[in-house]
């Protein structure tokens, strides 16, 4: 078997990459993609633990399904927000949306 730790390292790395992306990308859509990446990394983590430790029960699977659903909904909402923001400010660069400055 592949040791559990490889999955965990993998999901941690994905999460870090996603986090890095959230924090450093200019384009808001790219930030959303990075958020998706983080969520998926979390899903991988959850599945790895489920599969290796609690494979008999369905709780882990249900948890992951809910996370997926939440991620999808959240992405929809996020995109809607970005489109609405684009319509208003003609930009999707995150650094330009600094209305809360001061």
């Amino acid at each position, binding site marked *: 078997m592949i040791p559990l730790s490889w999955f965990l390292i993998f999901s941690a790395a994905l999460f870090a990459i996603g*986090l890095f992306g*959230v924090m*450093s990308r200019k384009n808001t859509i790219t930030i959303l993609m990075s958020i998706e990446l983080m969520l998926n990394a979390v899903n991988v983590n959850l599945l790895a633990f489920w599969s290796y430790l609690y494979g008999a029960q369905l709780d882990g699977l249900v948890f992951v399904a809910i996370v997926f659903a939440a991620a999808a909904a959240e992405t929809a909402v996020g995109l809607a927000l970005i489109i609405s923001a684009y319509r208003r400010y003609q930009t999707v660069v*995150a*650094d330009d*949306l*600094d209305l809360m400055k*001061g």
Partner: protein
Amino acid sequence: MSTETLIWLIPLPPLLAFALISLFTNRSRSISHWTAIVAAGVSWGLSMIVFARAFAMDNLGESPFGSSINWFPVGETYFKIGVHVDPLSAITLFFVAWTIFMIIIYSVGYHNFGQPEGDHDRPGLPPHGADVKDEKGHTHRVPSVEPMYSRFFAFIALFAFGMYALVVTDNLLTLYMAWEIMGLCSYLLIGFWYGKKSARDAAVKAFMVTRVGDMFMLLGMAALYSLTGTLNYTRILSNDAVIQQLVTTQSPVLGLSWAGLVGLLIFMGTVGKSAQFPLHVWLPDAMEGPTPVSAMIHAATMVSAGVYLSIRFFPLIAAGWTPGAPLTPPMIVVTSIGTFTALFAASIAMAQNDIKRVLAYSTISQLGYMVAAIGIGAYVAAAFHLLTHAFFKALLFLGSGSVIHGMEHGSMHTGEEIDTQDMRNMGGLRKKMPVTFWTFLIGGLALSGFPFITAGFWSKDAIHAGAYNGHFTPVFVVLVLAAFLTAFYSMRQITMTFLGKPRSKSAEHAHETKWTMTLPLVILAVFAISIGWVGIEEDFPLIGGVIPNVIKEFLGSMLKVHGTEIFQLTPIFVSIVLALSGLTLGWLLYRRLKADVPDPMQKILGPVYKAMQNKYGFDEFYDIFFVKTSNWISETFTYRWIDLRVIDGILHGIAALGLGIGRVFRNFFDVPVINGAGDALGEGTRGLGSILRKLQTGRVQQYMVIALAIILILGAIFYSVIGL
């Protein structure tokens, strides 16, 4: 009602009248004068009743009427004040009541009640006439009513209260209070026409000069109180033990006994109030007041109060003296001042041209007579002369007021602007003002001591006899010489005013004054003739003994020790000769006096006349020596130097010091520290805010970075501290 109750009531009606007039009746002239007249009348009535009862008592001297009440607590007991009527008070009450009543009635006419109000009359200045149109359309000037009519009666009523209170009181403290009330009223009334600067100055002068005397009197009172513990007459003066003790203890001043020193100090009060030398300067200037005031002050009341006090305190002044023995030092002082004043003032009166000034100096001279009589021990004669003098001097003053009124009538009628009081402008008024003439003549003859039919003769003769019988030759000679001068200037005054031909148009057109003014003159003239007859010596040839010598028996009962009176003809003879010769000389010199001719005496006396006319320069001397010096002390020394520079300097210094400290506190503590702290708080917050604001960039990704950093730090802390 008991006599004591009546005595308590005597001073009250005038006081009530003063209160009523000042508070309520000021606007109505007739109500004011009726209030005053009724009050004076009531007091007069009460005084007459008390006098009659006092006279009927057998030994009033030993057991006088008296009653007292507690006033304020002093130590264990109370200080008592009350009333006391013995023969001296009774006699004084008699003449005070009559003269005050006559003067108040006279004042109604004097202030022209019933005349129209003047055109340009202002309160504060004497009235000067109103223009009246008669039926034919001619305007002529008539005398106008006094603008401050009610005020006069209010003050006169207060004055009457003061005098009545002084006469009936039984102790020195209330006497002093009444004394000062009269001093106040003399100030108010001399300065009655306050619009005239001369009147204002005269009022201040009168008050200041009498105050000098009063100060010494207060010292005497204080000494007396501290020595004997009381100020009551009976306890001091009728108490032999007290007098004895005062005589035998030495005072620290000039080797006098305490009795002598206190007597002299109290006598100084008389010197001030009765205008003896050297405090005589206020009395002639007091003629600035209306004539009834001059009569009141200088005949009836105020100056009499001074002599009354000295007669009252005769036991103290003469303590240790028995008749026949040499005079004690205080008596020598008293006599010297009295005799000198008598001659001195008589000489000045000879050269005066204002009708009232002659009478003023005459008053000073006659008071000198009385004081001299006290000094040589003839206090009965002094009291007798006080009694007669009050009547004839009041008569003379009121008569002079009537003359002045007559002259003013004439002056207004003819439009001539002359001094209506100057005798050189008068003359021939005998025909125009007969009642005034005859009453004034009676008064003048009484003053000169015309033999037998005038009161002045008997009282003056009593004084001369006292001086002669006591072998006080210098006193006798000086007094007799003063009597000669008195007769001379009296006749001079009468001749210049009434006899001869009128010397000005105003005198030609003068006419007699109203009955309100002449009736008091007539009544007083009756007294001026008859009051002397109660004092005729028993041994007098022919008429002695017909009327008992009431004065001697009544008054003489006050003192326990009398000299044996030897009756001698010489003083009487001398008095008669000198009085008649003085009268004749006065008449001869002045009967043909014309207008604008210098006084005949000027040729005779030369430079002495000038000195007499200038009152020997005493006013000027006092002015330079005392008035200007005290002005300098008050204006320059105490005001500019001490008050402004030193005292205000200290105050300004303290204020500057306070300001400086305040400034230091403000600049070095308040502003930097407290303001600084406050400002620092605000500035600091703003600075911090402007720094922290930079954190809020509005850029979400940076927020996330910061959040992540802090989570990591917190995680590290938790890990290391708690041991996660």
